[in-house]
């Protein structure tokens, strides 16, 4: 029997698989495809203090082995999420991780505080890496001091463990990871999307109305694996790894690189059953490569 379970700060996971923020809405749609209780956890779409409509459409475009998106943090606002989305999800036997975003430090703090009002959320994912909004978002994620600052502020007001979601659009992701660790982060989540652009030749315009968007999907997996590996060698808090995961082999690759759990984003669009299928496949894959548990595989890449 392969043991998929593991414990992370605030989370008792039956397996290390969770849908990534923004790629699973608030779960409704995918609950039609399979029982969400099967998931290790569910990471919600970003919450901001008030409702946001997001960017103009088109908001997505396909690229070679990937896609660009510029949704722009559309969401119904944190109180609406707490009152109308979280209760639906709490019927499932899984962990709920709320992704929080903001334009200002104060907004992050406000949103984090709001989640104290429900006991149905198990952890926060602090999104300091959204490349698709004009203010805030990625600004907080590209400077170690600002990243530490917002982490500290959120930790101070929140009762929940905080996983800081790092941006790959940086020169030195290690220094940012260390800064947020020092500021009290309970874990890291990485990577968010990489800023990209594509131009439609007939119209000469960007294929995304927002001009730039965030690149996700298999195209970025090598970059994600490299960053997870580098960061895991330099911090002592657990990492939720993500970026281009499509199957259980990819999950094992992230575990070997140093992730403790993983999130699956873009792949849900191609195959709505993908998280469920990965959970079914993972024991076989772990066994095939000589592991008897998820725990055992974490950080076991041989880098000599």
């Amino acid at each position, binding site marked *: 029997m392969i043991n998929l379970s593991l414990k992370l700060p605030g989370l008792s996971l039956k397996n290390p698989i969770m849908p990534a923020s*923004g*790629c*699973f*809405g608030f779960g*409704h*749609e*995918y609950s*039609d*495809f399979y029982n969400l209780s099967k998931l290790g956890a569910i990471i919600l*779409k970003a919450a901001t203090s008030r409702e946001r*409509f*997001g960017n103009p*459409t*088109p*908001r*997505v*475009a*396909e*690229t070679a*082995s*990937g*896609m660009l*998106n510029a*949704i722009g943090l*559309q969401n119904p606002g944190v109180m609406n999420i707490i009152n109308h989305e979280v209760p639906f999800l709490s019927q499932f036997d899984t962990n709920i991780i709320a992704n929080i975003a903001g334009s200002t430090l104060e907004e992050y703090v406000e949103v984090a505080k709001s989640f104290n009002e429900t006991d149905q959320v198990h952890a926060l994912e602090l999104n300091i890496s959204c490349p698709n909004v004009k203010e805030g978002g990625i600004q907080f994620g590209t400077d170690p001091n600002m990243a530490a600052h917002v982490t500290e502020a959120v930790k101070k007001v929140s009762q929940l463990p905080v996983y800081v979601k790092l941006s790959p659009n940086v020169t030195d992701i290690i220094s940012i990871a260390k800064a947020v660790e020092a500021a009290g982060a309970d874990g890291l989540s990485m990577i968010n999307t990489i800023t990209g652009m594509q131009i439609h030749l007939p119209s000469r315009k960007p294929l995304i109305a927002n001009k730039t968007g965030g690149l996700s*999907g*298999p195209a970025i997996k090598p970059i994600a694996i490299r960053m997870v590996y580098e960061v895991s060698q330099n911090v002592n808090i657990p990492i939720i790894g993500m970026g281009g995961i499509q199957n259980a082999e990819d999950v094992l690759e992230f575990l070997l690189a140093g992730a403790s759990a993983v999130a699956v984003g*873009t792949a*849900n*669009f*191609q*195959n*709505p*059953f993908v998280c469920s299928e990965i959970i079914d496949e993972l024991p076989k894959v772990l066994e095939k490569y000589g592991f008897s548990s998820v725990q055992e595989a974490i950080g076991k890449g041989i880098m000599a």
Partner: protein
Amino acid sequence: MINKEKMKILSVRSIAHQTIEMVLESEQISKVALPGQFLHIQVGNLTLRRPISIANNCSETGRITILFKVNGQGTNELSSYQSGEMLDILGPLGNGFPLESRSESTVLLIGGGIGVPPLYYLGKTFRCKGIKVISILGFQQANDVFYEDQFSELGETIIVTNDGSYGFKGLVTDVLERISAFDCYYACGPKPMLKALTDKLTDKEGFISLEERMGCGVGACFACVLPTTDGNGYKKICKDGPVFPAREVKL
């Protein structure tokens, strides 16, 4: 209930310039698919599925027809599939045209280019219910025209081409006055066409089917939103649409 199903391709043929008709064999989806709903098709290994309307469906035989224009990488690759091959399909997606609890005696279908396909299944369904169907179909030019015979079997059909190389010359809005009386219209086509149409037919009840680039196709990713006319709301085209009452959405 949305299904993910492998469908066998029964036939592939070119029916007009760069326009393909593909007949698929479905186990599950065909049983429940309604006019106006669409399929989300996995083409090769492409990251995103491609949304294509259901152009015809026979729930008894499980045969679903799609009609598509070769447009870019995905539709190009799709057109190279051959009969006998399998396609991975998610569907039926979206809400179709309203069919229940309606009491028209005559409906007008207005399609532009590759907006024509969903109207065929819709027209056939109306026809079966004994409702009179009139169709206006607009195309760029003569060699783009398709399904004229099929629509003609449903009722009066007017073909319009931009350059006049076939049928009437002009836009679909130019021939509206030729239509005697109708109770409600159903339209699908490029946004400028839909805008012109709804502006002109403000006094009529109408339903329009919209397109937007999609991620998930099921309502989870917020890629395909559309502002509503009430000013502060939005709808998801993939889940709340693609069909909307003409008055409710801002084009």
